[in-house]
């Protein structure tokens, strides 16, 4: 099974390089290639997760065995957490890729689109798999640079502007991250995460480590679009073609933002209360401001983008709670609970937000606009889109029995148990706000009367677009089984244990 690990990087890279070359041959078939690749990888990740039983595989690239236990090559580490992330990335990737097939038809340069799309996935797969800091940075760059291009794919004025802002801020963040990595290398003399963790935790004096963490936090915080580093996200996520938005909001900010924060702060550095509090403060800011900003939007996709900021706040807050609990020396079970909630919410939010962006794409595809003030009454003409978006709305607002409810519930329970009542209260209140602004969406897009004659001829989107939406809507409901004890142990708790190193 070991040698299967690099496939997660090789398959999408191969697809990315091969598509432009063979595009001219048969376009019809190769459009399905990225989707097929991601399906294969998602299945593979699933298979590995089941067969690992909580263990992790270390794959040494190039066969460079460690010398005196000091790794010299790059290691790819497939542990339950990274496998879970792989499942998310490739699954959402699969849906978005299928959705793209009719959606991207109207653009020129489809081949480049699929190529860039695959590269983005390759980068994210690399980031979640790698056990090496610098390698993580490289893959991060692969995925974000691909995403810069994808944001600008429509090459209209707005899209270029959004992409430019995204690039500049993203570039600064990458610089911060690179600087922090250089510092880490200096500090520990290695770029291998496991090795560095051993050195940092055995060493004395955490002063430098804290500074490194601060830089990483701002760098990755920007990639995860935590307020106040969120400025690029609403533009970028709303300008991109909808399936790309689904990828950006659904997985990119998680794979290269939240995942990296969790992985590095929990598995590499020694935990510290300062970082825990900073995480909590930033996440609360994100939750509240993201929610309020989302309420004021009239552009469907911008609203979704702000909502992503708000929802990522929940994930980071759960991480912050876990860290504070662990540092304070409270019951590790509470930390595990919080982390499980956070990871579960991350998983759920991928599906929900992916679905919502696909809905937005379907609406835009069918009507040509995404302005809430122009739309209305689409429930009768777009029944599938409307029904799936209602499901996603309930899910993201935390209405039982949808999956979003359970993840928020776990986070709130953990917050209460950790005696952080205020956080629990904020989480609860933001749920209402979430419900309110998604009701606004429902009201102005799907309910109400049809406001303009040009929407009279609107028809439901092609099956390749509605199929992913239906599947994801069903998943919104079905993913609730993740908290049933048996299932949870395989999916969530193994990942939590891998992260918190609780045996």
């Amino acid at each position: 099974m070991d040698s299967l690990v690099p496939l997660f990087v090789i398959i999408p890279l191969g697809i990315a390089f091969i598509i432009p070359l063979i595009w001219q041959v048969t376009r019809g078939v190769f459009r399905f290639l990225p989707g097929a690749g991601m399906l294969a990888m998602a299945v593979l990740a699933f298979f590995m997760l089941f067969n690992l039983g909580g263990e992790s595989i270390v794959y040494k690239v190039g066969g460079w065995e460690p010398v005196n236990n000091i790794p010299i090559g790059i290691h790819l580490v497939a542990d339950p957490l990274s496998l879970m992330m792989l499942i998310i990335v490739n699954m959402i990737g699969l849906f978005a890729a299928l959705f793209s097939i009719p959606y991207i038809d109207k653009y020129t340069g489809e081949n480049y689109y699929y190529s860039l799309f695959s590269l983005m996935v390759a980068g994210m797969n690399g980031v979640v798999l790698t056990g090496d800091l610098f390698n993580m940075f490289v893959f991060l760059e692969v995925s974000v640079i691909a995403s810069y291009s994808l944001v600008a794919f429509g090459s209209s004025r707005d899209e270029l502007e959004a992409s430019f802002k995204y690039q500049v801020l993203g570039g600064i963040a990458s610089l911060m991250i690179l600087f922090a990595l250089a510092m880490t290398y200096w500090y520990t003399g290695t770029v291998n995460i496991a090795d560095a963790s051993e050195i940092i935790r055995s060493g004395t004096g955490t002063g430098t480590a804290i500074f490194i963490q601060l830089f990483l936090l701002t760098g990755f915080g920007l990639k995860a679009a935590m307020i106040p580093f969120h400025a690029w996200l609403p533009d970028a996520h709303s300008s991109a073609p909808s399936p790309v938005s689904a990828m950006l909001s659904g997985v990119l900010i998680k794979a290269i933002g939240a995942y990296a924060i969790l992985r590095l702060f929990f598995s590499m550095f020694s935990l510290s209360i300062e970082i825990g509090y900073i995480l909590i403060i930033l996440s609360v800011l994100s939750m509240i401001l993201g929610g309020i900003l989302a309420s004021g939007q009239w552009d469907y996709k911008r609203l979704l983008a702000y909502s992503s900021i708000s929802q990522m706040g929940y994930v980071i807050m759960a991480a912050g709670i876990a860290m504070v609990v662990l540092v304070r020396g409270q019951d590790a079970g509470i930390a595990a609970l919080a982390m499980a909630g956070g990871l579960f919410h991350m998983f759920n939010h991928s599906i929900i937000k992916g679905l919502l962006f696909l809905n937005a794409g379907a609406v835009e595809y069918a009507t040509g606009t995404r302005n809430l003030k122009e739309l209305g009454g689409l429930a009768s003409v777009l029944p599938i889109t409307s029904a799936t978006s209602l499901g996603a709305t309930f899910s993201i607002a935390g209405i039982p029995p949808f999956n979003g409810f359970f993840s928020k519930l776990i986070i709130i329970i953990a917050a209460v148990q950790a005696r952080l009542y205020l956080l629990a209260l904020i989480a609860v209140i933001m749920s209402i706000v979430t419900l309110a602004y998604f009701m606004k969406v429902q009201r102005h897009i799907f309910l109400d009367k049809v406001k303009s004659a040009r929407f009279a001829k609107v028809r439901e989107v092609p099956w390749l677009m509605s199929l992913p939406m239906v599947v994801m809507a069903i998943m919104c409901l079905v993913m609730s089984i993740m908290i049933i004890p048996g299932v949870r142990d395989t999916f969530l708790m193994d990942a939590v244990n891998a992260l918190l190193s609780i045996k």
Partner: protein
Amino acid sequence: MRNLILIKISKLYLVVMIIFSVFILLRGHNNPGGGFIGGIITSTGFIFYGIINGSERVKSLLRITTIELMGTGLMTGIVALIIPVFSGLEPFTGVWIESDLLASAGIHLGTPVLFDTGIYLVVTGVFLSIIISIMDVVKWN
């Protein structure tokens, strides 16, 4: 700008640079040099040529587009990384041609060198692509 001597010089310079860069590429494994540097050196040759002769001439001289050049480089790199699979090793492993004769001459041939060649092509392609694009826009042709 059409200065005959300059044109000749630029051609000569290009040839010299290409030969020099190949030399740098091949010796890179043991001495300072390698694909990155080699690629940049080649592109300086082309840039000089381009400044004097215009971007259209560079394009016609290259015969393939810069995108294809980069693609070729990437494929070369990937092929180099995958070759070990055929000799029963993990991908990314280095495979070397064991030859005393070459070794005594200080030359080692193996997949890493091929990979380096890939880098060389990509870097050349990247620089040329950027420069030619800019030249096109500012109408340097």
